[in-house]
């Protein structure tokens, strides 16, 4: 099922634990993600990118306004900055638990592990894997649930550039198999341009949209595509 995500007039504030100050992250903020659209949100630190993701994931509630995710609670697949794996159980179990909780046949775990190149590690503990392999497990877990909404919270920022580049290509391939509504939060403007249909640049406090770019390049895309570098330059210009 294709899901439209809407944030309408959202207010969200936090009280700083350090200073006790009230920090207004969003005030009357609105954003819409069309069905099967992958939107990248780019911005500096503290511009509310992760808060935005948490609002959509249901990990935070808005102080005011509404967050609509298609009328119900859609099936979520989420890749966090850190893989957030259960280190005490196998790679296969990590993926299977998410599949079972989503009502997906556990038989689909093996094909998704095959797709991310981890079949040989299915019975291993995640702790023996490299950072890139652990993030592959997280990607497999996100896709095995057949997500209606895919949330990517700086998924490759903790990896070296070569590994991150490979995983972006992997993500693109998995996305091409079954597109769904998605939100990518990233610091990396080129990553945003490479993966997204639309890039939204956030800035200021409270956060507001300071730039918006539609990426009309067909998929599969190349990280070397000069048009993407052009978009990248414009995003960086908006950020600065």
């Amino acid at each position, binding site marked *: 099922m294709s899901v439209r995500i809407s944030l309408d007039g959202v207010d969200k504030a936090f009280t700083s634990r350090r200073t006790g100050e009230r920090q207004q992250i969003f005030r009357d903020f609105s954003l819409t993600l069309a069905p099967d659209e992958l939107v990248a949100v780019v911005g500096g630190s503290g511009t509310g990118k992760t808060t935005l993701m948490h609002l959509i994931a249901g990990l935070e509630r808005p102080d005011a306004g509404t967050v609509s995710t298609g009328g119900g609670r859609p099936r979520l697949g989420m890749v966090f900055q850190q893989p957030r794996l259960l280190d005490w159980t196998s790679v296969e*179990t990590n993926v299977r638990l998410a599949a079972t909780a*989503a009502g997906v046949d556990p038989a689909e775990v093996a094909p998704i592990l095959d797709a991310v*190149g981890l*079949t040989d590690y299915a019975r291993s503990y995640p702790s023996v894997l490299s950072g890139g392999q652990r993030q592959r497990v997280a990607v497999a877990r996100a896709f095995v649930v057949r997500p209606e909404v895919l949330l990517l919270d700086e998924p490759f920022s903790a990896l070296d550039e070569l590994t991150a580049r490979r995983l972006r290509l992997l993500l693109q391939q998995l996305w091409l198999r079954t597109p769904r509504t998605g939100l990518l939060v990233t610091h990396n403007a080129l990553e945003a341009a490479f993966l997204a249909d639309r890039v939204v640049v956030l800035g200021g406090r409270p956060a507001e949209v300071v730039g918006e770019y539609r990426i009309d390049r067909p998929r599969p895309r190349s990280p070397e595509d000069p048009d993407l570098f052009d978009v990248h330059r414009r995003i960086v210009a908006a950020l600065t």
Partner: protein
Amino acid sequence: MTVTHPAGVEEVVLGGGRSPAPPGRPPATGVVARLTRPLPALLLVGLLAAGWQLMAHTSGSALIPGLGAVARNLADITTSGALAENVRVTLTRVVLGFAAAFVVSVAAGIAMGRSEWLRRFLEPAVLIGLATPGLVKALLCVIWFGVSLLNPVLTVALAAAPALTINVAQGVRSVDPALSEMAHVYRFDALTRLRYVWLPAIVPDLFTGARLGIAMAWKVIVLVEIFGLADGVGYQLNLEFSQHNVAGVLAWTVAFALVMAAIEYGLLQTLERRAVRWRRVALR
């Protein structure tokens, strides 16, 4: 599966699922390492026994019997069947009491770890339970419940529960909130969260609490059996004491210590090794 992209696009292995390095799994422990592991503990026991024998020999007092006399008493209670029967009785009481404490403590500990209000509500009871001497618990249970099975079971549960509860609560508080968020996003049900998120995370604290709880249980069960029951290791110790048979007291003490060591090394440590074997794999 290998996907080929248009010109200029990198090739990414999507599928195939074959990786060159073998997955990390725990190799079998070496036989030599397994055989030599208990040597330091055995050396200590040997030194203590030698020291005791020397003391008994030089003092010549009936209050310090030699190892031979203790061994004869040990052989007597073993061959007569008294040892097996009384250890069985005592162990049954400890197991039932500890099981009750475990169920209550895990539930209370998780509640205290998850809710600040419940922590404040239950903490005084746990602290009072920790501070109250085992002797007081034993005496009160003997007074209130007499010779029924409820007496030793409740005493053991009261002795074991506080340490277990406080450790479980500590373990739950240390569960990574990032994993709780992941479990929320992927909609793990309560049972899956308990089994795969909370319990594995609190295993080290659980075993610490279990050890403290069992140590308290051993202490109070002997007291309860001395004061208010007509069988069990504590009762037998008291019987030997009333007959001024120091060798008999030592024989029962040694037998009891051996049972405790068997439970610690044979059961607890084995269970703990199995529960945290993923950490050993991670450290390789």
